[in-house]
């Protein structure tokens, strides 16, 4: 079963789990299964048309799925799907 790594900003939708294992034979199916298990995460990942939002990067292991086969990229038991939104926290205060 592939493992999905949940970034900090989305953990409130997964009951603070940092990793969630869900079934699916493609990256899209894995994210769909994640969205079924944690419904609030769906609109963060997908546009109303069902495309991956452009501000969310999704990696299969260490490679961006956009340079693989997109959401149709095959995913299997040992694979890790990383969801990665941009982060800006850093140097300033307050």
């Amino acid at each position, binding site marked *: 079963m592939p493992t999905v*790594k949940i*970034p*900090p*900003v*989305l953990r409130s939708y997964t009951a603070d789990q*940092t990793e969630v294992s869900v079934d699916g034979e493609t990256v899209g199916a894995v994210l769909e299964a994640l969205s079924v298990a944690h419904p609030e995460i769906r609109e*963060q990942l997908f546009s109303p048309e069902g495309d991956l939002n*452009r*501000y*969310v*990067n999704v*990696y299969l292991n*260490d*490679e*961006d799925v956009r*340079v693989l086969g997109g959401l149709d990229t095959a995913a299997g038991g040992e694979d890790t799907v*990383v969801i*990665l*939104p*941009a*982060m*800006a*926290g*850093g*140097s*300033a*205060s*307050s």
Partner: protein
Amino acid sequence: MSTGTLPIEEIQAKIEEISVDQAQDELAQGDVVLVDVREPHEYEEAHLADSVLVPQGEVLARASEISEDKDARLVVYCKSGARSARAVHALQEELGYTNAANVTGGIDAWQEDGKPIIFAEGMTPEQRMRYSRHTLLPEVGVGGQLKLLNSKVLLLGAGGLGSPTALYLAAAGVGTIGIVDDDVVDESNLQRQVIHTTDRVGVPKTESAKKAIADLNPDVEVVEHRTRLDASNIMEIIGGYDVIVDGADNFPTRYLLNDASVRLDKPVVSASILAFDGQISTFVPHDGPCYRCLYPTPPPLELAPSCGAAGVLGVMAGVMGLLQANEVIKLVTGIGEPLIGRLLLYESLGTRFTELKVRRDPECVICGPDAEEIPESEMGSFPDYELFCGGTGS
């Protein structure tokens, strides 16, 4: 038979040993080939006048560079006399040199005796002492240290990430450190912004950082930019620096910096932290992807909380800030493999590092092929950054 395995005392008994005084006399009379058999980085730091550098391990292969004449007078030294003893022995036993002598005690004894030495140019005696742990590293050496001393690095922010980055870059001898920050030190900063102190609460951060750096290393010139970066000032501010360190707390600044740095061809080391997580990459324009290749559009407000709103483990700033300093040092000295085309994620609760590949986006509006068509008149004017997420950290 290999001479490298004999005990040093046995070797010394078979060769001619001369004192530093004898060596000096012979050199004064001339007709002597003086050979330094240490490593290049040691030679670079300090050596005797008119010496030939041939590291001990290469002496047999490069003997002809020392002297074609096997009866020539050779005076051989190293740091303390051991490596040079082996070199003399090898020249004598394996190649038949007849008149080679070892300087007992090496350059250390020579220097202790107050005899003249040629030191690397550009470093004072204090600097040679201060940076000796750098110059001892063959990868850095005196040459690398001089590059650091001549480098100019700009830090966006003297906050969580900027504090440790600034302290270590200052300690490393980065010659000029610019700091862009318009904030003042607040008590809630001190949990992670280690360049500031309790008694400097209320003081501008650039001024507080300048004080800390001056106390740590007087070699470093600190340039205070007590402002926020915007489209009107960014080209002028970043134009004077070699490397930019991005620890900005908001997306408009990150995109603005990316676009300006690509146009000015400045490398950017970019990190961010939130809660227990951090990410870092190094963007070198046109050598690798830019920030926009990685993140073409910023996330909506609810996905862009600041540390102020969401909290951050103070140590995260240290870990990621020092990874940034490490990248800067590699870029300046030209050693190692910077994080170009790689995004490194760190999860502190699990103590896990994950590395992801970042590729250039052939259609990137900033560093893609069409970007070069941007006319000169538009340099420094950037798209609608302020419309991105009002979700700045402040």
